Structures are given as structure tokens and as C-alpha cells.
């Protein structure tokens, strides 16, 4: 056997799941091969370390909750034996989980149906169109970052300036800033819902741009 095959079997060997003949073969290879020997040592150390880890015992409250939930689901008395698949599909287990299975299958169907439509639409657009759309949005997202930084830098300066103006004027400026903030938020929400929509990205960018311009004009204004 090659190193690659041996390395797959080392884990099983450490866990005591190999037959005698297989153990002899792996053991012989590991004794001659330095890299496989290293892997075997690593697995052995990991296993010994894990055996020394303290056992976590959930509190009585946790157990009580689990039992209560199992009782509510009507499966607390179920003690199926055999393999996992055997237990899952045992006659006792299936009827009790029928509503849960039904829901899961229904959801799965919806997901599969949605995925199929999505894949169909994606294929219809084609990989080139998708790439172009992503490429088109990227510079907008970069610009968004720049505007956000600019806004952050101007925000404090404009706030200080607004404090020095007449109250009615301050109210007007704050109202208009709030209008833009509201709109920025609306665009952000829309962009989150439709992340691939370049038109929304452009609106969001325009909103940031407007906010930055307004802040700048407040800071630089001669009549404020």
C-alpha cells in the first residue's frame, strides 16, 4: 500500500477498528516510513489527550428540559436499538416524528424548488452576465467605503458648526441631515435585500455622496 492509503487507515488503527491482518501491514509501513510514523504519533497523542479531558456533565436543569421536550414530542419512552439509520426508521420512531418529518420534507421541497428556480435563472443570465454584475458593483462598494470614511470625518466638524448657528437654522440643517440619513437607511435595507442590484447600489452611493456634500457645505459655509 502507498503512504496515502496507509494514512487513511492510521486513524482507524488508533481507534482500534482495524483487523489483525490490516494492523500488521500498517504497523510495518509506519515502522519504515518517517512521514507516516509522524502522523501515527500525532493521532496517538491526540487520542490520549482527549481521553484525559474532563467529562462534562450537564446540570439537572438541562436534563430536565431535554426530558420535558422529549415528553412533549412524545418520544421520551422510545428506546430503539440497532444502527442509527435503523433507529431513525424504526416502526416506533417514525409515527411519533411524523409531523416533524412532514414539516422538514415540506421545507426541503420548497428549498429544492427555490434552488432549482435560482439555478435556472442563473443559467439563463449566464456566468458572464453574473460576473459582469459583480464586477460592476465592486467599484461602487469601494466608493461606498470611501464615502463612509468621508462622512465620518466630516460629521463631527459639522456637528460643532451647527452648535454655533441660530436655533432655527440648526433645526433646518438637522432636519435635512435626518432626511438624508433616513434615505441612506432605506437604501441600505434595499441593498441588503437585493445585494446584486446595481441600481440600488447606485442609489445608496448617491445617498452617501449627498450626505458627504451636505456635511462639507455646512463645514465650509460662509453664511452659517
Amino acid at each position, binding site marked *: 500500500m502507498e503512504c496515502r492509503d496507509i494514512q487513511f487507515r492510521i486513524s482507524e488503527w488508533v481507534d482500534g477498528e482495524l483487523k489483525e491482518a490490516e494492523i500488521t501491514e500498517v504497523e510495518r509501513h509506519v515502522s519504515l516510513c518517517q512521514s507516516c510514523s509522524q502522523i501515527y504519533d500525532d493521532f496517538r497523542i491526540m487520542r490520549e489527550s482527549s481521553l484525559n479531558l474532563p467529562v462534562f456533565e450537564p446540570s439537572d436543569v438541562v436534563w430536565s428540559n431535554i426530558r420535558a421536550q422529549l415528553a412533549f414530542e412524545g418520544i421520551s419512552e422510545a428506546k430503539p436499538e440497532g444502527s442509527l439509520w435503523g433507529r431513525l426508521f424504526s416502526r416506533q420512531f417514525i409515527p411519533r416524528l411524523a409531523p416533524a418529518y412532514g414539516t422538514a420534507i415540506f421545507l426541503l421541497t420548497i428549498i429544492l424548488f427555490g434552488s432549482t428556480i435560482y439555478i435556472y435563472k442563473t443559467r439563463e443570465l449566464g456566468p458572464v452576465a453574473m460576473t459582469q454584475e459583480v464586477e460592476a458593483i465592486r467599484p461602487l462598494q469601494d466608493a461606498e467605503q470611501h464615502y463612509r470614511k468621508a462622512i465620518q470625518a466630516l460629521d463631527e466638524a459639522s456637528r460643532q458648526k451647527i452648535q454655533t448657528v441660530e436655533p*432655527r*437654522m440648526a433645526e433646518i440643517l438637522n432636519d435635512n441631515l435626518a432626511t438624508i440619513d433616513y*434615505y441612506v437607511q432605506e437604501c441600505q435595507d434595499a441593498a441588503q435585500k437585493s445585494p446584486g442590484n446595481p441600481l440600488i447600489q447606485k442609489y445608496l452611493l448617491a445617498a452617501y455622496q*449627498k450626505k458627504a456634500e451636505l456635511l462639507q457645505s455646512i463645514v465650509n459655509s460662509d*453664511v*452659517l
Partner: protein
Amino acid sequence: MSFDLIRDPILLHRANAMGIQSLIMNLLRSSLLLALSAPFLVAGERFEKVFPVTKNPYVMITNYTGVVTVKGWQRQEVKVIAINFTKNVEIDTELIGGKVKIATHVLDKLATTEKAKVDYQILVPEDSNLDIQTNMGTLEVENIRGTIEIDAVEAAVIVHGVSGYLQARSLGSKLTISNASGMIQTNTVSGDILFVHLQSNSVNANSTLGNISYDGDFVSRGKYAFTTNEGAILIQCAEQASVEWDAKTVKGVIESDLPITSKKHSSVSRDNGRQSLLGTSNRGEATVQLSTFSGKIKIIRK
């Protein structure tokens, strides 16, 4: 005092627009404010100055509150008539290297807007270039051929009969532009933008919350771009208008009663939640781009 106000041509113009009843209410309100602010206000001190200027002078005007009127005339001089209503301001004027600077200087910036009020009537050569900043009140500009830059906060702006490049920005006030023929760029946050009978071949309007209204024809090979985020766009034009339409909205709606030949499969298509209108009226000589985030776009036949 009240009689002086009524004789004021701008107030009379506004009176026609608002109706006599609302004018009387405004006068009563103004009188009450004047009475309360008596220690700071004066009964309108008149200030007048004339500057002889060369061709294409540059005129800078800065005011806080009040009515500002700027009109182009045939003389090569700038005439400034100001009415100062308060002791809280000083009027500074100067001529430096072909530039005329007219500025209201407010002594106590935290005083109420009424205590910063100055009205201006400024006559300038028609080929003047203007740079105007005003916060509140009214600004009217008429008959100018040079470039105009306007920055207003809450002052209603009316621009009429200008032919040079016009850039007007406002926060909350309405911009009204009529009979203009140069390149126009406008920008507001919550103020409406109104265009009436333009001959411009390049018009750009952008607002966050305000509505944009365009009433008139489109110039052949002209380019018009109107964007409002939350507001509506209303276009009123003749059926003979030769326009290539490109309208988009993210969450709003598009309506048109103008015959538009679609470029695509349908005149109004829905794609990924967007709505768009791509088509031409007649030969499609002018390009009109309309865009809103959630506002309505409406194209009406006149």
C-alpha cells in the same frame, strides 16, 4: 412701515401668488415679530452704492435672511440698494479686481433670523457672473447671461430669463427656474424643483425628498436628467415632443399617457423588482432620463 412693505414689488408679486388674505396674515405675523424684537430692530435703514465695472464682472452676494433680487441691466455698473432692518448686522461692499463683493455681516450669529434681516435689490450688467449664498427668505434672479451659482438653505429661489450656466443648490426651499436657456444643474434635499418653459439643452436636477416638475418642450439633441429619491417626477410636454425616454424606479411606479414606442418587449417592464420605461416619442431627438428610488414618475401630455 406696513405701507412700505406693501409697496415693495417683490411682496406685491408674492401677494398675487399667495392671495391678499395670506399676505395680511403674514403682515400681522411680521408686525408681531417686529414688536417683540423692537430693541434690536430698526425701521429699515437704506443703503445704496454704485460700482463701475468692466465686462463680465464677478458679483458675490452673501446674505442671511431677507429678500434678495438680482436683475441684469444695460449699464456697466453694479448698483446695490439694501434695506437693513436690524442693528445686529453690517453691510460690507467692496470692489477688488473686477469683483464686487456684497455681504451681510451678522454680529451675533445666535440671534434669531429676524435679527439678521437685510433686503437687497441689486442691478448688475447682464453679462455678470454671480455667486450668491443666502439662508432664508427669497432670492430672485432675472435677465443674466453669465454663469450663476446659488447656494440657499431655506430661501425660495426664483430664476427667470437666464442664458448662462446655472448651478442652484438648496436644502429645503423650492427652486423655480423659468425661461432659461443655458446649462442647468440643480440640487436639493427636501425642496421641490420646478422648471417652466426652458430652452436649455442640458438640464440636471437631483433631489432627495423633493418633487421635480418639468413643464415645456425638450430641445433637439438636448440631455435632461432628473433624479429624486423619495419625491415624484412630473413631466408635462406636448405630444409632438421628440424624446428618447429612459425612466427607472426601484420601488415607485411609472405612468405615461404620452404615446411612447417601446424599445423593448413592453413599455413598462418589471425586472428584479425594478420598473423601467425605455422608448421614444416621435423621432427621439432629446434624451430624457428619469429616475426615482420610491417616488412616482408621471409623463403627461399637454
